């Protein structure tokens, strides 16, 4: 069942999305006829058992992969048939990623990691980039660690830096893949609070999670099973953000 908040403008629209993998001549259907819309400012959780296709769905949403067939519209634009560089540009401006294993680059400092997506833009000056970086780090309370290297930070701190990197470019949507999966409960709580805060400030968040407590903090929960959306529930306890 799919709930649509007509008051919000649609940001993401997937129509009949299929994704097949061919491994050793065996065809695996990772996603099978997925239809999904996400409105601006929505906080969505994707849950389901391992191997159900939720990470594949997140990859397609993030343009990290292409669907075998189906239609994908992002902010009203069809992005299903873009070439690699066009997809890269959209990822850079419109999408922020948070990974389970943080994926910070060990050779770069905290500030450089946060700045990294901004360096691929030509519309920002060095000063603007530095301002964005500082604001993003301050938002996750990591401004004091700007010159440290990832190896000098705890897991929780690394994930906060990863969140700062995701929001530094003010993307349209934040995609988080098990953001608390590698963290202890205390750090998980901090990270989830930051996401809550971002949502409260108007961010659109789409999070893959196994953790029912994390999912419960989102506005909408969809469940994927065998490559299909089998449940789509609106969490009335979490308020929608007007955008």
């Amino acid at each position, binding site marked *: 069942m799919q709930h649509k908040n007509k008051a919000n403008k649609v940001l993401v629209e997937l129509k009949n999305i299929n994704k097949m993998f061919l491994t050793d001549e065996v065809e695996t259907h990772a996603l099978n006829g997925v239809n999904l819309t996400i409105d601006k400012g929505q906080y969505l959780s994707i849950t389901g058992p391992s191997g159900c296709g939720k990470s*594949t769905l997140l*990859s397609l949403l*993030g343009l*990290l*992969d*292409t669907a075998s067939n189906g239609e994908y519209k992002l902010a009203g634009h069809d992005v299903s048939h873009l070439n*690699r*560089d066009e997809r*890269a*540009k959209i*990822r*850079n*401006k419109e999408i922020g*990623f948070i*990974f389970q*294993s943080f*994926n*910070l*680059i*060990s*050779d770069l400092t905290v500030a450089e990691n946060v700045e*990294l*997506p901004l360096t*691929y*833009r030509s519309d920002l000056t060095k000063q603007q980039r530095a301002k964005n970086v500082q604001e993003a780090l301050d938002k996750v309370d990591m401004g004091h660690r700007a010159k440290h*290297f990832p*190896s000098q930070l705890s897991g929780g701190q690394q994930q906060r830096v990863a969140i700062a*990197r995701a929001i530094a*470019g003010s993307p349209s949507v934040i995609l988080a893949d098990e953001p608390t999966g*590698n963290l202890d409960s205390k750090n998980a709580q901090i990270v989830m609070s930051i996401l809550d805060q971002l949502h409260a400030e108007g961010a659109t968040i789409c999070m893959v999670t196994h953790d029912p407590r994390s999912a419960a903090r989102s506005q909408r929960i969809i469940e994927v099973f065998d490559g299909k959306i089998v449940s789509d529930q609106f969490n009335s306890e979490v308020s929608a953000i007007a955008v």
Partner: protein
Amino acid sequence: MSIGIDIKYAARLLVKKPAFTATTVFIIAIGLGLTLFAYSLLSSLIFKPLTLGTNQEFVAIEGQYDYSHAYRESVDPFHLNQLVQEVDAIDDITYYGSGTALLSAIDAKTGTKKFNATFAKWNFFDVAGKQPIMGRNFTEADNFEGAEKVIMLSYEVWQSYFKGDNNIVDSMVNVDSEPMRVIGVMPENFAFPSHAQTWLLMPADQINPTKPSRNSAFGIARLNNSSSIEKLNQELSHFNQRMKADLPEEFIWRLRNGDNYLQATAYKKANSDVREYYSIFISLMVVVFLILLLACINVGNLLLTRVNERYKEIAIRVALGVPRQRLISQMLWESIFFCAIGAFIAFVLASWGIELTNAAFTRMFAVQQDQPFWWKLAIDGDALLVLFGAIVFMILITGLIPAWRALSGDFNAVLRDGTRGAMGKKASQTNKVLVISEILLSCIVLVIATILLTTSYFADKADYGVDTDKRITARLELPLEYYDVRWDTDFEAADHKKRNDFYYQLKSKLEDLPNIEAVAYMSQLPGTGEGTSHFEIEGMEAEVYNENPSSNNEVIGRDSWRAVGMHIIQGRDFDDRDAVPDANSMIVNESIALDLFPDGQAVGHRVRRISSRGEGEWQNIVGVVSDSYHGSAMDTSSAQYNSYHLMDSRSRQSINIAIHYKGGELQAKQTLFDTINATDANVAAYHIQSYQQLIQQPMMLVTTVSKIFLFCGVMAVLLAASGIYAVSANSITQKTQEIGVRRALGATDANIMKLFLSQAGIHLIIGLGIGIAISLWVINILQTTMIINSISYFIGLIAMPMLIIAMVLLATFIPTKKVVEMEPSEALHHD
């Protein structure tokens, strides 16, 4: 039992990946094979002390090596005799001079043949620690006034020339037409001091001088067991100071090389070829060591890649409780297998290389018969020990580095994530160091190898200014018995005339024959001979003697130019006017005329020799001849300024002849023999060869070493290309997740490619910067003994770095492109 399992497991891994195993074994075999070969070569030729089976090292005691003339400076036996009493570091000393012996049996059944002769002090064989296998040793009595002249034969001369005649001892033979008694035969392969075939005694007055004299000899000392060459040189330094104070004024010239009159050198290092090309040998050692390092890095990197592939498996083993030492042991067994198989192949390769080099040495010394007896390479016990050491070194490098890498990871993260995880900062730094090391080492090896190769190639193809086609050359020697040399006596002019009469008579007879076009005599023919002396031009004298130009000087017969394809450009050739006493005529070559005289007009000017010892007589330039080049085109001691003096007024006991012939070479050689016999059967002709062979002679050692460098160069390119590619590919593969992250964050393909190519650029700048700096330092050392032309510089310092740049950029581009072409989601989860 557990070791058995580890061995079985390691063996199974090798069989499972045959291409990986073959590549690794090949690289190890190249590294170890070259090491074994280079050690055997350098140890036999230079570094292993010469002991002749005794427990004492032999050292050469002589004057300073003269690099400008490429010869060893001999010293006064008077001073050598004093050393035994005054120097503690040596146990005994003897000395010798080298020459030739024209040998013939008394009954003249065997004909006259030239052999290498060593003129030695009577204690020569006692100091050498060797006794004859037949007959007796020299005794002091053999040197007494009126004693019968005696000769010792080598085993080879006894076998080849005297057909192993069992009655040879006590028989009489003619040596330079003088009867001498054979007193013994030395053991097989004994040719001490270098390439002796016969041994004769020095004249008594040279052996027991009572005061300093002009006599010259080379000293050989047996070093005291408790001493060293350094200690001996300290004592010699003190001796030189004392000797300097007592040296009569007339012998001050002995000190022309400063106060280092007597010097001790490791015996093998004193050899002229080694001295002249020492820097090339050292370069070879450096290059081979660098190739061994390259091989180690390549193999280490291959095993590192393998560890990365097996990282998850290792993590599972650790999780199952495998002790660290078992993991290390497993990896070491793998390396032991690789190195053992590689070492076997290396042994076969090195043996093959040694066989080829021995064959090359045999060819190199075939004409002159002057191969030092220790220039026979073999893989001896020491070499096997070095091989063993190199194997252990390789096992440690190739086994422990991957073991360290395998054990230093976060296994928990690997097991949790199911991937190797993003590359750590430390691993990233290690990869940078590996890539830069590969670039640096390849640069040095390729630059040195190509510079040596191209230099010897161009020297081989050099234009020596002479026509060598249809020319044979030989050395003529007039026996003293029939051609007296009585310097500074009333007979001097008559002696000159007798020798010249023979030479010109032979020339005339030869040129009358239908198959002979022309005959030339020269003290050294163009392409050979070397060394220069200063001369000053009248009216253009420099204030300091050594700021004057210098030239090579040769003695030449009349009408010699056409026989070697040279011609008079200005003035005239030598004729009767120049043969009279005090004529003091000379001919200079075109380069001297053009470079040093106004309008290039040298005829009519006067020049004279000048040195620290004084000036010679003024000489009149009567002609200018076309340019030729004396010495090898790659030796710094060679010369393109040449002055020629007429043979008639300074005729020589031996001289080189060049013959321009028609028809076949063999027929020309036979014609020479027949005509000499018809003119004077006592005269010997030897070193008969084509002019091309003569010119190649001084180049042969360098050509041989260059072929080794060529092999090293090809191997270096292979190792460098494969190594740089493997290290770069491994480094980039390890960064697959990072690339995935960057692309997820919006990096385009071009952004990623630019990033990795610019990183490669930084590696290139560092690696090539250091590599070229080290190469220039080595080249600077090489330049002291060899001329490196501009093309060699270009190929070595421009083309080779360009090749490395291309290799590195390609090695970065291909694997990066491969990773970039993955979907970011795939790259992020790359295992």
